[in-house]
């Protein structure tokens, strides 16, 4: 089994989100970057597959060299090799184009992506790749079972679950459920040491877009007004406020 896991590097979930440049740039100052949490579930699932039957796991990022640390971490967790396509990665369209080009001659059986990046929440890259490579797309995947020639997948839908069957190769956009939280691996000392000897290939990219989507402005949502405290012996007041003030019940 030849598995690709696409990894995006995102601000740690506790990072303060600030903007500079007259609210036109995201302020990276003081931010720790981590493997996008959804991608980590996918990577762990790939490792499970490898442990059960043999597999080669490649992790891929499109970005500049500040992303090498998340790729190194993915290697320490258990990926076999890492590739970074050197690009400014300004939007999902260009990222997807780079990944598609990379995949053309690699014969991956499974292309894993996270359901969305927790920074821009676009959820675009996996669908873009699936369509361009003309592959089945399983979004919001919460379960994967390999059955020789096909795989059985479970995905979350708005009011329930869907079970589907796909041939190889396919693009899977995963989330928690593929593996559980407790299954996530913390890199061991041995993992970190062996990651140093694994390859991190850097591919230069000359891909450009004719037309793109640009960010023109960032802003923080308006803060909620002061919280109104209600005495626990007077819950009727809350019911009244929800009815007459908030008008939600």
């Amino acid at each position, binding site marked *: 089994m030849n598995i690709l896991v696409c990894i995006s590097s995102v601000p740690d979930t506790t990072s303060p*989100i600030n*903007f500079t440049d007259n609210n036109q740039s995201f302020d990276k100052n003081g931010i720790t970057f981590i493997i996008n949490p959804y991608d980590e579930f996918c990577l762990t699932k790939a490792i499970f597959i490898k442990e059960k039957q043999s597999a080669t796991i490649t992790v891929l990022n499109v970005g500049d060299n500040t992303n090498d640390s998340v790729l190194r971490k993915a290697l320490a967790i258990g990926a076999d090799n890492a590739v970074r396509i050197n690009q400014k990665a300004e939007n999902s369209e260009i990222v997807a184009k780079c990944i598609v080009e990379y995949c053309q001659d690699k014969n991956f059986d499974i292309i894993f992506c996270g359901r969305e990046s927790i920074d821009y929440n676009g959820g675009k890259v996996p669908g873009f790749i699936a369509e361009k490579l003309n592959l089945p797309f399983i979004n919001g995947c919460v379960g994967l079972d390999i059955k020789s020639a096909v795989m059985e997948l479970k995905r979350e839908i708005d*009011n329930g679950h869907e079970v589907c069957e796909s041939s190889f190769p396919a693009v899977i956009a995963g989330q928690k459920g593929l593996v559980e939280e407790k299954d996530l691996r913390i890199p061991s000392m041995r993992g970190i040491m062996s990651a140093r000897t694994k390859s991190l290939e850097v591919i230069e990219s000359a891909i450009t877009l004719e037309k*793109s989507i640009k960010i023109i402005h960032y802003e923080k949502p308006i803060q*909620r007004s002061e919280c109104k*405290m209600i005495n626990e012996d007077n819950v009727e007041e809350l019911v009244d406020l929800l009815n007459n003030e908030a008008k939600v019940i």
Partner: protein
Amino acid sequence: MSVLAIIENWEGEFKKTSFEVLHYGKKISNEIGKEFIAITFGANNPESLEGYGASKIINISNLKFETTTNNNLAKISAELISENASSHIIISNTITGKTIAPLLSSNLNCGLISNAIEHPQTNNPLTVKCKGFSSKAHVTYASENEKNIISILPNSIGFSEKNDKKSEVLNIDKQIDIANEKLRIVQREKAKGKISLADAEIVISAGRGLKDPDNWGMVEELADLLNAGTACSKPVSDMGWRPHSEHVGQTGLAINPDLYIAIGISGAIQHLAGVNGSKNIVVINIDPEAPFFKAANYGIIGDAFVVVPKLIAALKKFKN
């Protein structure tokens, strides 16, 4: 040229988000003076979309949302979009919408702006404000493409009133090549909860403060009373107290109901990331220092096991 909306339904019945999408498309079509077309699949009653601004309603009557793969829904939608030369394509950011939108965008070679929370600021070039950074920021995008898909965050736009304008309703069939299908839907299971979390206008959520999965009876009772969906914090679903589908937050579902009631949840930044978009937040927590109070509209400091039964009683009285 046209504006085209893809209208989702569940088992043939339209949802609240269906009408939100129509409202959004209608406004753009008025502004740019182009025809507004709505397409849907397997609707029981496509005529019920009349009066919401679309002059033409196309129902692909032989295919259903539930039994057609997203790959195929996207393929057929792409054909219809091309036939109608649509420049603005509107879809709801439900799971189906989120899945179809990038497939369509790639197929049609057009722009995709996802998570829109407002009407476009300008239609040409298209600029739209969207949710970003898990609700910690808003991001305004401008597209250089002439043709764009906008996926809108459910429950963030609102609706327009129905009028009595008639539309042309077309029921057509589209063939898909099932024999060579690489992907096949085996079955679909509806979640047990009566209200889908994604559609719920009111959500009752509880955290580790409830101490035991057996204590969820009062949460469900409160949800029943308010016709609400139920949610939980991440540790609660990690411990298997509640199903994963109820997990909200940075790594779970992001929701933006009109009312979110958080019971025994501390309000960690990762939890807030999924619920901050809620229009009103009520927090019930025993600890006056719980961070969630800083992100709430209304708060009660107290023991959930005392406060929630009182709230249930007060609501029952109110409903009578």
